[in-house]
């Protein structure tokens, strides 16, 4: 029982982070049909901003986290305005390449400003984790924080989407762009909100990971790809799908390398992806919108 439970806990911890980042991908894609390749870098930026506020400026860690989220929200907004907006409606490839350009640019910028060395953010001593009663798995305090914070943010997002005016507007635009604009919703404003919220969530993920592990300029790359995969598996465009996908990938990865050589850990996410794409391309919660499957 102990080992299985430990693997599940490991999976949940990892999954929480994937889910947070996947939300940003899925929200942007849901409205714009655009894969925001630079999203992983926003995650990285969040971690570094958190580090700046907490370690360099000595701000309390929770406040630092919130400030970092705000900073990234602004960053996401700005990136959309200057790089993606001019390319709206120009097809799929130019925005994709632009996003890639932004991703490279941000990574290099991080090296320029912060240097390439590894930074840590650890608060407190390294201690043995807490054993969870009954299931005999070990978890540390900050990992518990990760799970709580990520779930809390997801719940907050759920309420936002369901009950606020902007949230409903987002759903409307994602569902049917033209009709939404006809009824008076300003799609540009909604899109901006999507970037703002998505970026803030990614930043939260970044800070949590930074605190639990460490900071490097390329930390967003692999998380970015896997979280995106999670979003697709869960049904891209659907925020509950992103959450589910995130946790699924986290769990399958960790349970998977129990059975296959651990070198393939990263490939597991892609294998899951391919499996879904071949048998249920719209993902778990996805809805057929007509363009996904061939005649």
């Amino acid at each position, binding site marked *: 029982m102990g080992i299985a439970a430990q693997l599940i806990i490991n999976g949940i911890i990892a999954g929480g982070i994937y889910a947070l980042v996947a939300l940003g991908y899925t929200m942007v894609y849901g409205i714009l049909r655009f894969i925001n390749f630079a999203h992983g870098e926003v995650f990285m930026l969040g971690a570094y901003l958190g580090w700046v506020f907490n370690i360099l400026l000595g701000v309390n860690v929770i406040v630092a986290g919130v400030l970092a989220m705000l900073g990234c929200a602004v960053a996401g907004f700005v990136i959309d305005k200057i790089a993606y907006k001019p390319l709206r409606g120009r097809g799929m490839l130019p925005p994709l390449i632009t996003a890639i350009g932004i991703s490279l640019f941000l990574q290099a910028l991080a090296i320029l400003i912060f240097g390439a060395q590894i930074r840590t953010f650890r608060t407190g001593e390294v201690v043995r984790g807490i054993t969870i009663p009954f299931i005999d798995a070990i978890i540390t305090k900050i990992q518990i924080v990760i799970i709580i914070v990520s779930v809390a943010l997801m719940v907050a997002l759920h309420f936002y989407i369901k009950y606020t005016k902007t949230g409903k507007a987002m759903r409307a635009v994602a569902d049917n762009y033209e009709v939404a604009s006809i009824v008076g919703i300003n799609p540009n404003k909604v899109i901006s909100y999507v970037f703002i919220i998505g970026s803030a969530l990614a930043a939260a993920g970044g800070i949590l990971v930074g605190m639990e592990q460490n900071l490097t300029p390329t930390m967003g790359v692999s998380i970015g790809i896997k979280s995106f995969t999670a979003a697709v598996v869960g049904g891209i465009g659907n925020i509950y799908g992103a959450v589910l996908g995130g946790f699924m990938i986290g769990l399958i990865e960790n349970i998977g390398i129990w059975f296959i050589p651990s070198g393939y850990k990263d490939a597991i996410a892609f294998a899951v992806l391919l499996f879904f794409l071949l048998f249920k391309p719209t993902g778990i919660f996805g809805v057929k919108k007509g363009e996904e499957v061939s*005649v």
Partner: protein
Amino acid sequence: MLEFFASNYALNLLILICIYVILSVSLNLIIGYSGMLNLGHAAFFGIGAYASALLALAGYPYWICFIAAVFFAGLGGAMIAYPSLKLRGDYLAIATLGFGEIARAVMKNWVSLTRGPLGLPGIPKISFFGLTLTTKFQFFIFALIIAILVVLFVSKIVKSPFGRVLRAIREDEIAAQAIGKNIKKYKVIVVITGAACAGIAGSLFAHHITFIDPTTFTLMETILIVCMVVLGGVASIRGSVIGATILVLLPEPLRFLGLPTSMAAALRVMIYAALLILLMIYKPNGIFGEWRFRHAKSKEAL
């Protein structure tokens, strides 16, 4: 100036241009003529490189290595072509990305075959008909000839009746099917051909650098090739040639900008990225773009 062009530095770049021309033309064939945004192209490149390198290291003559590269890369193409028939648009792109990453994971972890991260050093020089390519200049001529042949081959396909059907499929798949064309067959042939050509590039690359490892065949590499295609204009063969040339050469002048030592490398990447972004904003169709990648969103322009 002439001495410069004969220098190994220039020849090295010219050889790389030949290799990347093959890669971008073959990717363009797939993207522009079968509508598949293939984000796993580096996998075919890598499979060809490893196939050629492994056989060369085992002592087989080059022509066998070459054919192996073509064959195995084409096989990779077949593996992705059939499942891809079920998917469209973004989903297909994502599937190819997954395929590419899985291929790379295999290259990295199947250590008994590929030596994994240790890579394959000491790949022998190319020789055939008793002639060995020893100097960079000789290699360049060889690579140039191959590149020209590949470009001509692809051009012929595109201009042929076969190519016209491909264009029909691209523009309106349902109509093409209505005329009775077996779309699946066309698409599969195109993908396999594109993959096989990438395999050729892989073989050239392996014997040029004489050392390969999995770090060369990453998603970033595919993205570089995609940029070459988009820069030149999707479905424009000339565009791909020009795109490859520009993107291979682009980082080089940046070396000479005399940037402060500690910041030079990072600044180079930033300038490179900025140029890419500007290019997309001001010339999104690429230089010779003939056809815009059709997309659900393009009808809902803001």
